[in-house]
């Protein structure tokens, strides 16, 4: 019995994640479409369910029922297995991330390395899928993707090193606890690192403006061109899971993980009431709008969403109301921690969407130049700047603030220098291109 017990909870958590993740990814897609519609003076999906709330379900059903097509000349086995690799790698990475202080499948002492390593495996799914499709578009998409991921993995890794220096541990839980101990989220201590990670993570998840591998207007759908139905859905799931993973890493490393804003300041304790009030507000809105829905099913659905929000309100409010020391009150850290973690993840993903609908797309060579000539040097300088600041602080006993600010300023100066010299190489291709002739 004692052999099994330690594994019960992690397995339970894992089941919850595997069961909920597809649903969550579906709803992120819906939110993305709604956000896009909002920015583009449209309404977005409105047909399936009230305000299109059932759209992800309809999409999932459609994808599951679609004919499973494997192209004639494809490598069947690899074509079949590639999406599985992508999805598995993306989901595995979630194992080491702490969603709140209690909800974590495994607190590995090399947590961050595990996440980085496993999520990089997803690239195999993309490359193999593109190759197995036996199509030019897929192949080009896959090759672009491979080059892009390798390039930006470097700067993302180096950006993370900056935060690791501050935390002094690779354990994801330990990193959050380090931020809790000092009271400063690492985004304020290492803003350059956060910026580098933000850019690199957008590129790593193949999101616009770096969505080269699946640049719709160029390569149709990149490595996914030949995929349809459920296999395509798996790739899609992998992509959105990857978004959640990078957002979770950023939250854990830079945004204080499950910590409430101003967690150590009693003055801001009223922020504890924010989550239940937010949920109550959403519930109120649902009940207010329910009678105005045109169809009975939609009314019921709206009420159901409202009741769900009420339940969440209770879950968030009860630990606050319960007498101190009781079991309910002690669950506060877990429940509120999960809320704040998911809230930050959602905000991070929102930034992704915002950027996607604002910017044009980089060209492939520009993307590579940005990666290697700007981000990688900047992230190396950033590590050195952080190191310098910490050395001054820990070895020479400087106060923390001036030491770290000195490091940041030096890093920014290096960044400005890189930008200034990068301008010169901005348009080197025209004119310098060697003449090529196709005529036989």
């Amino acid at each position, binding site marked *: 019995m004692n052999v099994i017990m330690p594994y019960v909870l992690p397995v339970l958590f894992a089941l919850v994640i595997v069961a909920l993740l597809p649903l969550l990814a579906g709803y992120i897609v819906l939110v993305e479409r709604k956000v896009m519609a909002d920015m*583009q003076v449209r309404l977005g999906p409105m047909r399936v369910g009230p305000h299109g709330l059932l759209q992800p379900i309809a999409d999932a059903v459609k994808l599951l029922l679609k004919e499973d097509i494997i192209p004639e000349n494809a490598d069947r086995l690899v074509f079949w297995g590639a999406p599985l690799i992508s999805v598995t790698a993306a989901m595995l990475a979630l194992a080491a991330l702490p969603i709140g202080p209690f909800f974590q499948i495994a607190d590995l002492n090399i947590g961050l390395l595990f996440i980085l390593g496993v999520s990089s495996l997803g690239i195999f799914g993309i490359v193999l899928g593109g190759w197995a499709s036996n199509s030019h578009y897929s192949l080009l998409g896959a090759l672009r993707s491979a080059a892009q991921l390798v390039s930006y993995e470097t700067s993302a890794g180096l950006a993370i090193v900056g935060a690791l220096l501050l935390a002094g541990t690779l354990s994801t839980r330990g990193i959050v606890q380090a931020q809790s101990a000092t009271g400063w989220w690492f985004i304020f201590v290492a803003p350059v690192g956060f910026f580098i990670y933000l850019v690199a993570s957008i590129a790593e998840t193949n999101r616009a403006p770096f969505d080269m591998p699946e640049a*719709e*207007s160029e390569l149709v759908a990149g490595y996914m061109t030949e995929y349809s139905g459920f296999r395509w859905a798996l790739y899609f799931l992998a992509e959105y899971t990857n978004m959640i993973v990078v957002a979770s890493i950023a939250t854990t490393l830079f945004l204080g993980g499950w910590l409430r804003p101003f967690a150590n300041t009693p003055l801001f304790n009223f922020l504890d009431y924010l989550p239940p009030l937010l949920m109550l507000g959403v519930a109120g809105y649902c009940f207010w709008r329910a009678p105005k829905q045109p169809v009975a099913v939609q009314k019921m659905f709206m009420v159901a969403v409202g009741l769900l929000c009420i339940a969440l309100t209770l879950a968030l409010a009860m630990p606050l109301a319960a007498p101190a020391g009781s079991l309910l009150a002690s669950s506060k850290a877990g429940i509120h921690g999960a809320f704040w973690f998911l809230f930050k993840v959602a905000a991070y993903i929102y930034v992704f969407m915002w950027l996607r609908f604002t*910017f*044009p797309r980089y*060209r492939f060579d520009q993307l590579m130049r940005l990666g290697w000539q700007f981000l990688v040097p900047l992230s190396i300088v950033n590590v050195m700047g952080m190191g310098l600041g910490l050395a001054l602080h820990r070895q020479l006993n400087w106060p923390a603030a001036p030491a770290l600010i000195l490091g940041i300023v030096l890093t920014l100066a290096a960044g400005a220098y890189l930008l200034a010299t990068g301008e010169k190489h901005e348009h080197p*291709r025209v004119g310098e291109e060697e003449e090529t002739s196709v005529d*036989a």
Partner: protein
Amino acid sequence: MAERYKTAGTNVETTVLGADEIILNMGPQHPSTHGVLRVKLRLDGEKVVGSECVIGYLHRGVEKIAEHRNYQQFAPYVDRMDYVAAVSNGLGYCEAVEKLLGVEAPPRARVIRTILTELQRIASHLFWLGTHALDIGALTPLFYCLREREEILKIFEKYCGARLTTHAFRIGGMQYEAYDELEKDVERFCKDFDKRVDEYEALLTENRIWVGRTKGIGVLTADAAIAMGVTGPVLRASGVQWDIRKAMPYAAYDQYEFSIPTGKSGDTYDRYLVRLEEMRQSRKICLQAIEKIPAGPILGKVGKVLKPPPGEIYHSIEGPKGELGYYIVSDGTTQPYRVRIRPPSLMNLEALDQMIRGHLVADVVAVIGTLDIVLGEVDR
């Protein structure tokens, strides 16, 4: 057939491929070839070393149909060529037949024609801007552009009941009198429109990514542009100040003041700036035109049955995409003997190969977008 291709020297398939080259077939089903254009690309990695356009997927035999319809009956067909600028197509055709008949549209009709055609130019450029930005990856400007285009289409709808294929004009003038609120509607549109163009500029003009994607891409020198018969904004962006509205005024353009924007380097960025400025100039023309619309009849003296004297005529107008010309041969009957249409999109498309060589696949999409082709017009 194969022989001809070989002598033309452009066929990408019959040439010997290097070990590191592939042929990529773009279209006719492709999200950003603007319809059913098919481009065979010969790639070295992602670099384009040769290309060949295959057209004709939307060929409907418009010119042949003309020989079996009488002059009035053919007018609605021209709307279906460049379907994002139907009013301009109609204007060109009606004026060509009028020239052949030797009649002139009354002044009132000519002014209203000018207003509607300029609105159509704005609508066409808006659609170009939206899709061009979409091709380069900016998803949002498309919807802002369509929002403004919608206002123009509403004016068309109020005027003649149709939004897209309007058949707005008749030979000899116009069929419908302008509705009462036309001036007010146009004025309201023009009042907001300058600010809206500023908004697009705020989104794109200074954007580092946009500039990086368009500057120095698809350069077309003035000499090359003239040699290939390229017209319209593409020609003007190469620095040639040629606009038929000024050079050979038609409709009521000689009465209005406007300038012809030109570019310097003939790259995609210049073409973008030229078209944006053209929208502002079109707005200026509209504002001048609504100030004073002359009273009088809207239809000149043309008979019910049109029988132009035997002869031939070439008349061209400055369409949104370039010189739109009609060459009509009459044999004295009620049906044209031959109608030949000079579509600006087709001539501009011929520059594609030269513009994309040495660039990357992503630039091909940008260049197709910047040429502003409509396949309905290319294939006819």
